[in-house]
């Protein structure tokens, strides 16, 4: 497959349309753009309030997007971090338990880094599949959040700081949105301009080749999980500040939406392909959709069905899946086996 790609890139396209086609063919965000377009068109007819109340929409996009951004770093390497929802809950509770807000935020972020490190250890050193390792962590950390919080929401000591945090500081932008934009820019620079970030793609595309090329694969995996843990704990701290309380059950609703955002954003689950921009587009689409649902009073179960359907659609329509299906159908009609590996 990579062989085909080299040939494609090697071809010199001279016409404008040819250049454009080539450029588009290299992008992975197609499905996210389609989803966003559909959502925007439908919403602008049925629930235009979403755009008037854009502060709410932006806050929602920031919430989904922040977790999804961290996930993207891990997915690029062909791993997955299911524990983000619990990381969010645990770090929120830890933050609320510490009386001083500043210290609380720092400790919460430290907790996120530590969880990322533990995940990375199990995946890179022990060699457990990240799906199972982080699933175990998801449940273990949820338990930890319950233990720390005594199974009830914890109020933060300094409520004023929380209220101040919810207010807009630059124009209509609240600190949450600003942090999200900052995280987006930093991660975008990291994966597209920094050597370590570029190597994420190599690790995800072909781990053995990356290893042979002298890329410190294990260190990159650690980095990826620590980014994801850090970003999730950041989201947890922001949530706790905005609500002035930490709920040990937090994060479950975000989990599905952020996965859907990252996967529909064109981040291939087997790694090596994807982009931060795609995640942003996916998160925007899902955020707008959720706000539209809430504003028009759609029941929660129906919302869950829709987000679940989008996730199912996202994971079954990536190019590799479609190729597998088309290959399968073709082999039926041609009466011979078609091997994909």
């Amino acid at each position, binding site marked *: 497959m990579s062989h085909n790609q080299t040939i494609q890139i090697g071809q010199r396209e001279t016409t404008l349309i040819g250049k454009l086609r080539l450029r588009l063919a290299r992008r992975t965000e197609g499905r996210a753009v389609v989803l966003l377009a559909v959502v925007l068109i439908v919403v602008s007819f049925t629930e235009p309030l979403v755009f008037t109340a854009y502060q709410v929409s932006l806050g929602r996009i920031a919430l989904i997007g922040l977790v999804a951004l961290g996930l993207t770093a891990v997915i690029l390497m062909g791993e*997955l971090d*299911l524990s983000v929802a619990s990381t969010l809950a645990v770090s929120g509770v830890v933050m609320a338990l510490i009386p001083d807000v500043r210290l609380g935020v720092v400790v919460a972020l430290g907790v996120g880094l530590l969880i990322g490190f533990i995940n990375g250890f*199990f995946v890179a050193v*022990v*060699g*457990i*599949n990240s*799906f*199972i*390792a982080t*699933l*175990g*962590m*998801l*449940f*273990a*950390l*949820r*338990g*930890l*959040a*319950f*233990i*720390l919080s005594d*199974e009830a929401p914890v109020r933060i000591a300094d409520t004023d700081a929380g209220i101040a945090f919810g207010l807009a500081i630059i124009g209509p932008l609240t600190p949450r949105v600003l942090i999200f934009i900052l995280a987006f820019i930093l991660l975008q620079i990291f994966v597209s301009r920094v050597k370590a970030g570029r190597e994420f793609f190599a690790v995800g595309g072909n781990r053995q080749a990356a290893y042979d090329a002298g890329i410190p694969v294990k260190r990159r995996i650690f980095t990826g999980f620590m980014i994801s843990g850090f970003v999730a704990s950041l989201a947890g701290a922001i949530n706790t500040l905005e609500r002035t309380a930490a709920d040990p059950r937090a994060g479950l609703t975000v989990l*599905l939406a952020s*996965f*859907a955002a990252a*996967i529909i954003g064109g981040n291939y*689950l087997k790694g090596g392909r994807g982009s931060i921009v795609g995640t942003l587009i996916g998160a925007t689409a899902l955020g707008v959709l959720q706000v539209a649902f809430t504003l028009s009073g759609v*029941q*929660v*179960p*129906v*919302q*869950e*069905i829709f*987000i*679940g*359907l989008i*996730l*199912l659609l996202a*994971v*079954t329509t*990536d190019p*590799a*899946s*479609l190729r*597998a*299906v088309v290959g*399968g159908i073709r082999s039926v009609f041609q009466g011979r*086996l078609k*091997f994909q*590996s």
Partner: protein
Amino acid sequence: MAKETFTEVITVANSGEADVKKSRSALPWIADNGIFIFTALLLLFAALFVDGFASLVNITDVFHRAAPIGIVAAGMTFVVISGNYLDLSVVAQVATSAVIMLAVSNLYGVPIAMLAALGAAVLYALINGIAVGYFKANAVIVTLSTTYIGVGVLRFFSGGSIFFGPEDGPIRAFGTSKLGPIPYSAIVLIIVTLVLAFVLNRTNFGFVVRSFGSNESATRLGGVNTGLVIIGAFFVTALAAMVAGWVLAAFSNTAVSSMSTGYDFQALAAIIVGGTSVFGGKGSVLRTLLGVIFVSVLTNVLVLSNISFGYQQLALGVLIVVAVTVDALSRKAGKR
């Protein structure tokens, strides 16, 4: 294709793993046999030191609670052995089956209710199986989304309300009957386990599921329709989840969409602790039964010792991670 030549293909393809038994490390031995010792130690500990464990009432209660989880775990063993990690959507499947059982049987009788539940199970198996088997999508993500879709549909139609069965109906009678100290539900668990163990070990389908988990490409090259195998594995899981839903509905005589929360996780813990490998290809249904006993007794001991829900979850999560670590390290030790 003849089974013998097929076995050869698989054996040749996996010859690297044949050395596992020769290694000197103790880990492979623990991964293989540890569960017997740990279960025995746990039972001994519980009987000696935990107040109220060794009473007839408590043992019956353990059986009652272990039965639905055990049935789910026995079915899910197929998905795990086929190398597809797990089926998270059992949570939705068990609840759907239980709700259908009580809601429909109140109106149309038990046989129609059973058929309706079967229809739901087939639907789950088809969606999960086609997405994973033919679209080659990741099983964890697919079943995560079908969980949310399923629970959402259930909550939408039931409105989140609780369904009650009639006090004197056949479902209630089944749920409360016992054979000595053993409730009927535990007998169902044992029957399901034996049937599934037979399917996994003695039929062509079970053979292909195991070979698929151990080497996917070799199985495909052997001329097996691998997509159908995956659908089959998910179908076995869906059927088991359906039966578990019936047992659960009969036991409590109530059904609500959130009644099976945590089943995915406890079943996975039981399967992995029992020694079935999440890397696929290795495992057995009877071992899963042992894992179920271990997990249920552990939970029971924690409950009896007044340890809070948070610690129980933490313990099970750590248990999964430790069990998988032992499995992974024993594989590494074997390869050296």
